[in-house]
Every structure is written in C-alpha cells, then in structure tokens.
C-alpha cells in the first residue's frame, strides 16, 4: 500500500502557505480542540506516549524533554523553534517553512501550551530569506485570526511569537548555541549542566524543538497516538535503551540521483528504496559507491550497506552516528572518497566555534593533513592519525562541549574504515616515493 504523505500533504496546493488554504485543509482544528479539551499535562502525556523523538538530529524523546521543565516555575518559560537548518545535505525544514508555515506554527502553539511557555522564538537560518518572509506572514495572519496574542481563542493561554533571523553559522543550530545567539552573543554552546530546560534563554527554563518535530506534534494531536505508533519501527526487544522509531519522517535526498528532493516516508525505509523508488536511481546510469545517511555529521555507508533501514538506531549498526536529520546524499561510483573527506573536514574546520581545544585544533589538523594528501604529499601513517583524531574528538568520548566535533569525527571514522583501500591507493599513486615516511614534515604554507 503506498504511503500517503501527512507532513507534506499541503505543499502541492496553490498558495499552500496562506492561512486560508491551511484552514481549508483542516488547519488549527487541533489547536482549538487542545485549548478546549486538554490540559497542558494531557498534551505532554500524549506526546510522551506517542514516542515522538526529536527530528533535529539527536533523536531525543520530545515528551521526556518537555517533562524536564521545573514544575511550578513562576515563569516565564521560553520556547525556541530551531529552524537553523544548516547540516550539509539537509533541506526539509526549508520546504516545510516555505510551503506549510502554518503547520509548523500550529505545532509550535500547541507545544507552547503544553510547556506553558509564554514566548516563542523562531530562529530561522540566515540563508533562508523566503522562509523568514513566509513565516512572518503566517505569524501576522495568526495574530489577526486570534491564534496568537492574548487569550488565544478565548482561552486563558497567551503566546507571543518572535522571529529571529540566524547569524549565519552552523553552530547556531546547536540548542545552547542558538540560545546564546538569540541573547545577542557569540553562538558558543553552553557547558551543561545546567540544561536549557532548567536554565536556558535569558536564564529561564527553555525548550528548543526542531521544525519537523513540531509538525509531528500537530499531526499527533490531529490523528492520535495510535496512528503515530502504527508507523515506523518498534523498539528492538533486546535493547532496553531503544525507545523505538515511530512516525513519519521527511527525507531529503540529494547528490548523484535522478530525482533529488524532499520525500516523506515512515521511519524504517531503507536507503536503497529511498534512492531507487523516490530518487529514481543513481544518475547517468552509474552505480552508487556510498551515501551519507542523515546529514554529513552521521558519516557514510558503502553501497553494500544500502539496505540499512533509516530509523533512529539502524545506522548505528553500520558504524554511523545515527539517523541525524535523515537526509541522504548519494555519491556515485566515480566520486573520489578523498574529495568527500576533504570537503567534510573543510566544512567542520570552518564551522568549529573554536571554544573547545580538541574540536578547534583537531578539525583544523585533519584538514591540513588532507590538504597535504591532496597536494601529493600524503603518507600512509596520515590515515592512522586521521583515524585517531576521528576517534578522540567529540562529545561521545567527552572531550568537547557540543556535538560539532562528533559531526566532524564520524565522516572521518566511517570513510577511513570503509574506504581505506581506496584512500591508500590514492596516497601511493600521488606520492610514490614518500608514502612510507613517518617523520613530521615541514608545513606547506605559512598559515
């Protein structure tokens, strides 16, 4: 039975971003029902029961996150919508905000009601000007229609929404970096504890949720927990720490495929099916060599691992960080992995906020090694060194504050582990006389 899109149900309609079209499709009915019939606690329980996990990349259970808020806090409690979608290869939030901003807003209003937040900040990536305009227009429409402002729809719940245009940095998407950025400072992720739910924006309890998560909240309210849990993959019975991967998910497909784009499918679809069925196969009749599973940070899988289901835990079984943002980038058989690795390291070295020593220096060190390899002066021992950098930086070994370094580390780890032969071949070919050297070299440039 073909899957009927839910999150993307609206986007093909004409003027789908207007309140009129959204309401015609049943929009804001869920909000009305919530305000009339449910208490905030009921909503939190509903979301917890649904097993919804954050769609932003870390896959943290949303209901659990909300329950971390201090009980009986005198307020204000703040709510941040993370729309700073900057993960390489990821563009699903953009589609949602450009074509269905009201779905996001409705989810945000329901979530604010559930968390008793009185102000919501939507932090939109700087490079998404159309999203900013569409979201602003939607917010204006909501104020006019009484979905925002004082005493929403006659209830005693009031909410103000502010749009914040991002500062153009990858690290602004990290939740505490985002908070710092809204406060007007450098987006340096905060050291935890305290966690944002206890002390976040302006030192008040704060919840940060991704755009897609909020759209899912809206759908759960509309369609119910049972519907949500009927989609996706149940928890692994022999892994008590796996809460399962339920619900629909937006997958961004890009790279060397015939039909790149944003597709909706239940969690658990395999990479192969996504590429073959939705993407129309690899371009130019070639075969695939590798794919990034869910945004660059999660690492790569080889073609042989394309049968990996895209749920929150399966990518870990093939050595990747996780599902991440669920955005797949396909590389065809002609693409050199050294270039992939170089590009990945260049990105993370450029985006490292520079706060923690291992990330700041480690990402740049890896980049320098790769620059040297690409300049024809690589050595085989460089791969071991790269691997060591990849294994020691990041929040997983505990050497950094935030996960940026993990994002840098996993592509290095997975590429070297899965494509070592190809990389060694490249080094031997480009540096036939010196590839066995192990002593430190004088640097290439004076930077």
């Amino acid at each position: 039975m073909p899957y009927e899109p839910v999150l993307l149900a609206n986007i093909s309609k004409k003027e789908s971003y207007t309140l009129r079209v959204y309401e015609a499709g049943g929009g804001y009915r869920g909000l009305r029902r919530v305000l009339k019939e449910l208490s905030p606690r009921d909503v939190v329980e509903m979301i917890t029961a649904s097993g919804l996990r954050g769609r932003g990349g870390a896959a943290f259970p949303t209901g659990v996150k909300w329950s971390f808020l201090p009980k009986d806090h005198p307020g204000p409690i703040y709510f941040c919508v993370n729309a700073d979608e900057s993960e390489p290869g990821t563009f699903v939030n953009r589609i949602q905000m450009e074509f269905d901003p009201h779905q996001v807003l409705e989810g945000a209003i329901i979530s604010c009601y559930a968390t008793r937040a009185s102000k919501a900040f939507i932090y939109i990536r700087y490079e998404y000007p159309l999203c900013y305009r569409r979201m602003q227009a939607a917010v204006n429409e909501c104020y006019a229609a009484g979905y925002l402002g004082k005493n929403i729809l006659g209830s005693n719940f009031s909410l103000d929404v502010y749009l914040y245009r991002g500062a153009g940095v990858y690290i602004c998407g990290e939740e505490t970096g985002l908070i710092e950025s809204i406060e007007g400072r450098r987006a340096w992720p905060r050291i935890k504890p305290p966690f944002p739910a206890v002390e976040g924006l302006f030192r008040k309890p704060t919840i940060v949720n991704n755009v897609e998560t909020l759209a899912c909240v809206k759908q759960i309210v509309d369609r119910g927990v049972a519907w949500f849990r009927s989609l996706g993959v149940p928890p692994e019975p022999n892994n008590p720490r796996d809460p399962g991967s339920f619900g629909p998910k937006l997958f961004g497909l890009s790279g060397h495929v015939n039909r790149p784009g944003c597709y909706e499918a239940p969690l658990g679809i395999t990479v192969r099916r996504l590429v073959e069925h939705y993407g129309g196969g690899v371009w130019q009749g070639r075969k695939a060599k590798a794919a990034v599973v869910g945004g660059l940070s999660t690492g790569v899988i080889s073609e042989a691992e394309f049968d990996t289901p895209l749920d929150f835990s399966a990518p870990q079984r093939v050595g990747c960080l996780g599902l991440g943002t669920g955005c797949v980038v396909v590389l065809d058989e002609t693409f050199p992995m050294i270039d992939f690795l170089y590009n990945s390291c260049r990105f993370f070295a450029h985006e490292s906020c520079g706060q923690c020593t291992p990330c700041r220096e480690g990402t740049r060190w890896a980049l320098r090694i790769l620059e040297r390899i690409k300049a024809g002066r690589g050595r085989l021992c460089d791969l071991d060194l790269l691997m060591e950098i990849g294994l020691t930086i990041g929040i997983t070994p505990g050497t950094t504050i935030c996960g940026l370094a993990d994002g840098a580390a996993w592509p290095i780890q997975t590429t070297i582990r899965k494509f070592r032969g190809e990389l060694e071949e490249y080094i031997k070919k480009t540096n036939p006389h010196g590839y066995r050297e192990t002593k430190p070299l004088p640097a290439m440039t004076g930077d």
Partner: protein
Amino acid sequence: MPTVIIDRREIRIPEGRRLNGIEAARLAGIEIPHYCWHPGLSVAGTCRMCLVEVGTRDPATGKITMQPKLQPACNTLVTDNMILVTDSEKVAQARAMVEEDLLLRHPVDCPICDKAGECLLQDYHYRFGRPERRADIFPFSSRRKDLGDVILFADRCILCTRCVRFAAEISGGKELMLIGRGTEEEIGIVDGYPLCNKLSGNVVDLCPVGALVDKDFLYKQRVWFLRRHANVCTGCAVGCSIWIEEHQERIYRIKPRENPFLNKWWICNDGRYDYSHVHDPRRLLRAEKSGAPLLTVDLQSLAEEINRSLRAAGRLAAVVSPHLTVEEAYLLCKLIRGIDSDALLALGPVPVIGEDESFPGGFLIAAEKCPNRRGVEAVIAYFAHRAASFDELLTEVDQGLLGGVWVSAGYKHEWIGPATASRFDRLKLLVVQDLFPSPLLERATYVLPAPVYAERDGSYVNRYDRMQAVHRAIRPPKNVRTEGELFWAMLGGEGRYDASRVREQLAYEIPYFAAARGGVPESGVDLKSNLLADEGDVSSRGGC
C-alpha cells in the same frame, strides 16, 4: 560531611562548601591540570585539560557506576559518594591529546618568551604531553598586537578566554573579546577602545601562557632568576597581599598574592607598578648633619648622638608617618615619650587622591594612599589618647612651643611645600627621615635616609582593621637604616631589631592589637572582630 573518592582515596568535603572537581582534588593534594578554569572567574569548560572520569558509588550496596564519557572537573560539582579518577590511562590520553592540540599552532618560541619558566603550557606538556611531535612543522612566528596596557603575542594564545572573562566580570569594562572563529580566533579589542583600566595588569597574571605580557616587564628579566617574597602593597589603605619579585636586590615586578579576605587574586596597576621609587636615583642614600654628609655612619654612635640632641632640645614632638609600620610607630612614640613624657605625637599628612574606586568584581582601590593610618593612629592613641593632626603640630611650631621635632616621612611623592617647610625654621632641633629631597631637608639638623616598604619589617593595619605582617623583600641600600633598627638602637634595645618581638610586646600592651598575639597568619588577622571579645576580657580583669 560529604565524602568523595578521588583516585581511590576518600576525601571529606567540609559541610556547606560547593567545590568542583579541581578544588576537591586539591584538598586531597591531587593536582588536576587546567587552563581555562580560574577560581575567580566563571566556568568556561573549554580547554578540556581537566577531563576526568566521574562516577558514583551507591551508598547502600557500594556498587560503583562510572560515566562512559570523560567530564571536565571544573564543571563537576562534587557530591556525596562521587568518584573521580584522575590517573587512569583514559585521562592521561585525553590530557596528551589536549597538549598536542595546543602545540599544533603554537610557535614554541620559549627562548624569547617572557613566560618561559612559569608557563603552564610548558609545565603541563612536560608532565602530560607526548614526547614526540606528529604534526607538520609550521614556521615560527611571534605576531604582536598592542591591546592598550598589555601586549598580545597572538600566536602563543591558547584561547582559554580567562582575560576576556576577567574584563567582563571583574574589571567590568568588557574591553577584550574574541575575533574570528575556530582557529582564526584571537583575542582583540574594538579599535579605539583599548584595554586601559586600573586592573588591566591582572590579565597578564591570568594568562596561562606567554600571550599577554606586561609592557613593564617585557624582556627585562628571565623569571627563573626571580625570587618572590610575600609582602603587602602600600599603595593605598586596602593593603593588598603581594609578591615582590626581585633579583639581586632589584625589584622586577610585583604580583598579587592570593588573600581571600582582601584582594582575592587581583591587584591594581597602581600597586603593581609601585616600585619605580625603590630604585629611583634621586633617593636619599646618606645621612646628613646640618647639611654636611656623614661619611661613615655607625648606628650606635649616631643613635647616641641624636639621643643627646633630643634630650637637649626642650619640648619634643614627633610626626609619625602613616607609611611607618606599627612596630616602628610604637618604637618612635615610645622613644619620644621616653625623653619628653608630654611630647606631642602627630599623625603625618595622610595623602588622599580622588575618591575610592570600586569594580564590578568587588575589587576596591582606596583614595587614601598610605598603608597604615589606622595602625599609627591606634599606637599614638595608646601613648597620647589622641593623635594630633599635622596642622596642630604646625600651629605649635608657629607658637614656639616646641624645641625639637622628629619627622618620619617616607612619602613616595612630594608631600611638603617650601611655605610649610619654612615654618620649621625656628626649631632648635629637626630630625627628618625621608625618601626624597624636599624643602624640609634644608632646615633639618639631621637628615636620615628612609627605607622603602620593600625594605621594612613590621606590620600594617588596613582600612578594614586587618593587620598583615611583612618581612623585607630586599635589603636597604648601603648606609640606609630602617626606622625600626634606628629606634631600637636609640631605645637601647638588645641585639638586632626584630619586628616580631616588638609586635608581640605591643600586642600584649595595646588592646587594639590583642588579636595579633602569638603571630599574624599569612592572610593577616582581623583586629576588629577579636577586639570586641578582648575588650570584655580586659574589663573583667580590670575588676579584680
């Protein structure tokens, strides 16, 4: 009392104290290396040098669960039954990694770096780093940037941001910031808004490497030649605890000495650079008698000679400088009152410049620019019930009521003008002890060169009634005798002058100093808090 287990040793944390891993380990005598953490600043947790393994022990079953990730000790508040492991292979590897990372772009120009010898990067690398370099070797550079009061060697910086946090939290000017991102980051200022405030010198002390250097000290001396002596700043009435660092009797720099009751970890620039007068060529270095230099000075014969002159002078008065130590003031008063029991005892002029300055971090610079007004006042009050002012003394001089006046001055700056000085013309005997030439010297019968504060032994009482004792950091120049030595000799004291013996004596004699009985600890003693209890003690004894 919470118990923490650090490297298999059980440490009891004093009740009610919030300690992080570094502080708790320190209680156990275990050092956790760190760069960005400083007890006086907020926690940044970015250098990652203090990573340790953290776990908990179940108090009921004794079962130990360790967290899989390393945790920064600086941001780990220790709680009951917490376990910290600082000596495991995992921790050692993390430290080695941080050290290796920090040296990737570091110029390693230690031979020309001011910090070499007291540099944490050197020390930690030697102890925790890898023995060999694996990274490519980059060309050497020592790029300099003028930040205002201090100089930044940008390539040496390890980006711990201690200086940035200091400028934001303690001095409050927020002059410093980070420019750029990632490895492009460096400490900077906004053009036209340099780091110029009275606490700016502290960023040099805070800098764990040689990135921020003192313009005053740059290239003057290698630090391993310096010897440090605990002392007290005499720049204002707060009396911050300091280290005086000298080499062969020459002071090269002054650093703050941690004192939780006073200056915490900081000192102001006024105090930090308050030693130029010590080696000033204009300083008085020779005793004079009626304008003629005394070529050889034998302390004993000089003491006897002045003693004779004082006895012959008629009514006496003494100007007791607020730069004298408590012991010296005590001996001077005792000496003058011993000869003339009705002698006038006046407090020397108290220099006051502007108003008190306070900073967001709680640091305060007093307007009163002398170290010991309260101590001297208390001593005079003991001998004369009330300290006369300098003006009262001048009036008596004008009225011709005085025959001989002893002026102990020791001021670092000009303190008396020709008009005031000429009022001393009609005295029979005028003894002046001072640091620098002044109009008063021409009128003096005896001119005695005074020592500077770094050359004195004794104690000072600051504006909060905290008494701190000091021992001299450098020897006085040849022919210069400290007041203490001179008064001791004139009073016929036995042996060498020993300030601590005098202090012990006056602590028993004068109730105000009762808290100083039995010695003064390094951080000083609060005379006021003990005084209340002691006064009751005295009155009850008086009833017997």
